[in-house]
């Protein structure tokens, strides 16, 4: 029990912070209630998938700057496919497209030995162009069955939250318990040591990037589900995903961190945005506040961890 607690200490701390922030929101806006929670779950959906995607590649010791662009490709792919076929094959094809894009990113990094940040920066533009080629301007359609999935409540849980948790952890939970999951952590922690212990480092990295692509496909699909159309121009998901990953306790550089922390981090960042809107803070100041809060939380967290280790 204590081991579980200790290994998830960061995530638990974040969850407490989230609860405090939710309480504060209720103070600022007494009418904030179930509707607000449901809105929050919906707003967090694309950010959560982008963050899951980023978390996997950061844990393997890389970074993927093309997350937002891959989401855009998947969103337009899905929206266009759904004008021609049912949503089940459209979703399946989109997930495969995401997986393939991620695998291409990973293979390029492994084969060319060019740093991750350079390859994925280049791919950011490539995938952005691909998205615009598929759909020159926002359009396409979304099946009603899909848009309905993110609306309302499923029992006591907002449907959007349930869908997100199922999709993220259906991939992450078995992965983190498999040999591949162990290899991902080993590679991110120390590539050289992993290689000498017999880990197929190259293949592991390609797999991690492919999973990142898969999560991006889910993110792109979530955009279509929310808006009912596909948008070729990437939204603000790249920087937000890096922020949530860092806030979630994943070490930039790799090897340490989980998936729960970053996902809670997404909600923390979204609720801060909601609070700032409800408080009527000058919109030109909100981004400064958001950034400052993030730095403060990460610094405070690091400080507490350091103190905890000494005693």
């Amino acid at each position, binding site marked *: 029990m204590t081991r579980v607690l200790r290994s998830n200490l960061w995530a638990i701390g974040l969850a407490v912070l989230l609860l405090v922030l939710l309480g504060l929101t209720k103070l600022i*806006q007494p*009418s*904030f209630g179930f*509707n*607000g929670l449901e*809105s929050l779950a*919906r*707003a967090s959906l*694309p950010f959560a998938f982008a963050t899951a995607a980023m978390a996997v590649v950061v844990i393997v010791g890389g970074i993927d700057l093309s997350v937002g662009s891959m989401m855009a490709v998947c969103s337009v792919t899905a929206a266009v496919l759904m004008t021609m076929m049912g949503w089940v094959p459209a979703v399946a094809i989109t997930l495969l497209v995401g997986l393939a894009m991620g695998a291409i990113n990973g293979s390029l990094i492994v084969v060319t030995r060019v740093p991750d940040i350079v390859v994925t920066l280049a791919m950011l533009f490539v995938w952005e162009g691909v998205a615009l080629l598929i759909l*020159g*301007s*926002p*359009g396409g359609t979304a099946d009603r069955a899909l*848009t309905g999935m993110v*609306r309302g409540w499923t029992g006591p849980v907002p449907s959007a939250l349930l869908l997100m948790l199922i999709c993220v952890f259906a991939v992450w939970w078995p992965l983190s318990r498999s040999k591949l999951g162990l290899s991902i952590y080993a590679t991110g922690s120390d590539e050289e040591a992993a290689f000498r212990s017999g880990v197929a480092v190259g293949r592991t990295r390609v797999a991690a990037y492919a999973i990142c692509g898969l999560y991006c496909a889910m993110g792109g699909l979530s*955009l279509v589900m*929310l*808006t*009912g*159309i596909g*948008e*070729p*121009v*990437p*939204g*603000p998901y790249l920087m937000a995903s890096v922020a949530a990953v860092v806030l979630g306790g994943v070490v930039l550089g790799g090897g340490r961190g989980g998936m729960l922390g970053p996902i809670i981090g997404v909600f923390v960042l*979204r609720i801060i*945005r*909601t609070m700032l*809107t*409800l408080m*009527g803070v*000058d*919109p*030109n100041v*909100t*981004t400064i506040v958001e950034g400052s809060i993030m730095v403060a939380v990460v610094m405070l967290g690091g400080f507490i961890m350091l103190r905890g280790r000494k005693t």
Partner: protein
Amino acid sequence: MKRLMTSTALAAMVMAMAPAAMADTFSIGVSNTVQGNGWREQMICAMRTQARDSGMVDRLVVAHRNTDAAGQLEDLRNLIEAGVDAIVLNPSSPDALNSAIEDALEAGIVVVAVDQGVSADGVYILSNNQEEYAYLGARWLFEHIGGEGTVVYMRGAAGTSADNDRHNGFTRALEAFPGVSVAHEVHTGWQQDRGKQQMLDFLATGIPFDGVWTSGIDNVIVDAFVESGAPLVPIVGADNAGFVSQLLSVEGLEGAAVTNPGSVGGAGITLALQVLQGDAPEDMTVLVDPVLWENVTEEGRAMIEAAQNPNLDPDWPVSVTVPGWTTYTTEEIIACEGPA
């Protein structure tokens, strides 16, 4: 008797003042998804100033940032949570926001879309007539180049309804002039830096053309010509302060500015307040018609000179008010203060 009269007069005065004293105040939410663009900044200032000037807005919640349709959905839901009576938005997409707009209407919130329309039913739309905007400017340009030649066509943000409407107007003008064709078509995304770079890139190709029609990214296009030393061709833009002053000051520049007041945002606040007070317009869509100012005739130059205001931000449209819809003064909108 005198006392009776005094008290009657007092009663009458109280009765007369009662509606004013009892006039409700409202809270209004604003949602916008392009930040750092002069037109949009003027729109936000017009909203703030008009809300203050009306005296009927006790709280103005502004969600104003750079984001996509999913982000605007989030902002709209936050505004619904904030319990506003009306939402005035500049929609990033005609179709993508319907789910949140329906939630707002269901909650009894008055929704007014300014600048661009949305497809959801029950939304009031107050917009500059974008089709006419493009047609007026394009027709002037094609006439001015003698009905013959090629033009560079610099559009706005792909997929927005304003860009689609303008495209229709531009196409209508183009069809009327069979001798004119488009040499190069780009989307500036209504971003100054991007539009300028696109023009510099095209000038570098050396392909000749006879005129430029821009969707409001105009002063930087003139800059691009001047900086690269290319010979000026007629340029049509919007009534942004920087471009309007260039029309008077840049040697050899022939062009026209078509009014597209960002202050339509303030008109949106007025419309929302009218609806909240039970005085809704008959038509759900209200269009504001544009005017064209050119610098090649005496009358045109006089109109441009009259509209100049040195205190304006060069990226702001010079038409800072919408007659009949806004009540603030130019000084007030420059101060950009919201309800206290």
